């Protein structure tokens, strides 16, 4: 709310991140519940075009190292037949879920408090900005030394990658909140915890959810780096392990494809939160 002006440029950047109303929700409400065929056909068409270009590019290159789409599809079938695909997806989801959940539990309250108490932000923000740009890959040696080679090490890396975006977006959300909400609530006699939970948290929810979406994307992004540690399962492990297996770049690309597809599904799940009235309330009050 006050102070910590040295950080405003960074926070403004985060604060300016997607504040648009949830397009799907608005569209659904304005057009009724009919199936949005163009919304399905257009991305499918682009996907098909991508596959055709990919196939032609490999054919023209004459290389037998990079796989064609059909070879990647066969690799995915092979993984399913060996019972590995589901195991690896579960392992990666386990690590990302816990790393992200811990980051949300720590990051959201910390960001709200730092956004509300200017002095706290002044004290902690420089440290946050120092830690924030450090790549999770740089933390791998530390993670192994602290946690050995258990699931805790990749979870720690995923936590580190996602906690700072969540904290900073929650902090920026409080800073950018319209003061009229707080004044009105105070006029109605709200203060302390009630003011925080009933007004500030709600007003900040849209931006917090945007921060969570971005953080979830980052958490899923670093799964390959996190699983470079000697875990023996996961989609990141699949990619690294396929490099050991000789000329199995079909498995490498299969791992990449699965990471991308699951990332898309996770993003769609988080976007469902935007359909809640209390989140749309926050969007609706934006100019």
């Amino acid at each position, binding site marked *: 709310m006050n102070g910590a002006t040295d950080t405003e440029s960074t926070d403004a950047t985060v604060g300016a991140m997607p504040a648009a109303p949830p397009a799907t929700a608005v569209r659904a409400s304005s057009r009724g519940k009919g199936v949005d065929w163009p919304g399905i056909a257009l991305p499918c068409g682009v996907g098909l075009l991508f596959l055709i270009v990919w196939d032609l590019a490999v054919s023209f290159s004459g290389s037998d190292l990079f796989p064609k789409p059909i070879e990647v599809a066969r690799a995915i079938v092979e993984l399913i037949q060996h019972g590995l695909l589901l195991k690896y997806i*579960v392992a990666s989801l386990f690590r990302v879920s816990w790393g992200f959940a811990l980051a949300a539990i720590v990051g959201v309250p910390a960001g709200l408090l730092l956004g509300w108490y200017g002095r706290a932000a002044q004290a902690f923000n420089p440290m946050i900005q120092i830690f924030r740009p450090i790549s999770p890959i740089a933390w791998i040696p530390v993670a192994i030394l602290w946690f050995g080679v258990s699931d805790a090490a990749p979870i720690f890396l995923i936590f580190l990658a996602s906690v700072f975006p969540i904290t900073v977006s929650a902090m920026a959300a409080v800073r950018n909140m319209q003061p009229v909400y707080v004044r009105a609530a105070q006029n109605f006699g709200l203060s302390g915890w009630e003011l925080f939970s009933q007004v500030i948290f709600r007003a900040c929810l849209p931006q917090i959810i945007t921060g969570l979406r971005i953080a979830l994307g980052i958490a899923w992004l670093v799964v390959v780096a996190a699983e470079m540690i*000697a875990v023996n399962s996961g989609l990141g492990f699949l990619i690294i392990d396929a490099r050991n297996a000789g000329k199995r770049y079909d498995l490498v690309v299969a791992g990449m494809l699965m990471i991308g597809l699951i990332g898309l599904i996770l993003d769609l799940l988080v976007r469902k939160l935007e359909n*809640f*009235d209390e989140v749309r309330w926050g969007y609706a009050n934006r100019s």
Partner: protein
Amino acid sequence: MTRTAHFFSLRRTVWAFAIVWLGAVTMLHAWMNLGLFAHTASSRSQYRFRIGFLPVTCHLTCPVTDFINKQQTGTSMFDPVRFNGWPELKEAYLSGYTPATFILAPMAIALREQGVKIKIVYLGHRDGSALMVRKDSSIYHIEDLRGKTIAVPGRYADQRLLIYRELKTRGMSLDDVKIVEMPPPDMPTALYSRAVDAVTSGEPFMGQTELDGYGRCLYQAKDVWPGFISCVLAVSEDMIRDHRPQVQELVDGIAASGKWLDTSMAHRMDAAQFVSTLYYNQNPRLLTYVLSTPPDRVKYSNLKPNRANFEEIERLGKECGMLEGTAHFDDYTDTSFAPDDDKVVEQNYEPKTQ
């Protein structure tokens, strides 16, 4: 009131979903990947430890010992932990997670120089390294490497010493070539795509370039530095102090597996199958090839640490700036566990297909 009710609806939804999701994914992971719900043999009361290794032929005796132990007794004296790179393997050792590990000999010596409590107790292999160039390359002699880019596995790789030694005998130095560091699994592709002019590491990645038809061997370690040592078995001093019988059992097991591998080609072909599928996740044709073509490409006999061998590594390491030269044979080895080669008894195990 309506908003309050909706707010709790969101909160409940988020919490319920989060709890169900985390619970489900945790249970599935425990069941599918950690085997927590599987019925396992009752754990042995004796000390169990983890041992780090990489999927290379230099560490082959580790999975062979584990596999044969399990075949014979249903369990193993140790848990092999496979790593994908040297840095992670080294860090796991430093953290105490793997009190025993297969490791590059110069890396173990360098760690000792830096005060790490590490002792080399046995060798991983002899020979088993090569320098590969492209088939269509104009490199036919060591001298042709002048000005060329050569990929080595890392800063403390013995293959770097091997190059240095070969260049030196021809009046050249490491400054005459460009050395880049690269994980061995990436080397075949780098050679194929002409990103580098030559690659050198342990097997099976060098053999892979031959199998795939674009690699040509410039030299095999066995031909230019007979008895070449790349990787060793090292354990922590704490383990030696507190669990001496287990260290002895480990060294005896590794020695017996080495003897077993060198006794018969049938043993090697069996190992190529079970190690590829159960431990390395590689196409068995790779190990089959490098363990047989030629049969002495890599050897697993005469693995007791030898002072003269290590003093040569020390000397070359110091000359090329890899080692400080402050740790010596008695500092970083403990040969009390290693049996003499003629006293090693091979594993009592015959392949089931025979």
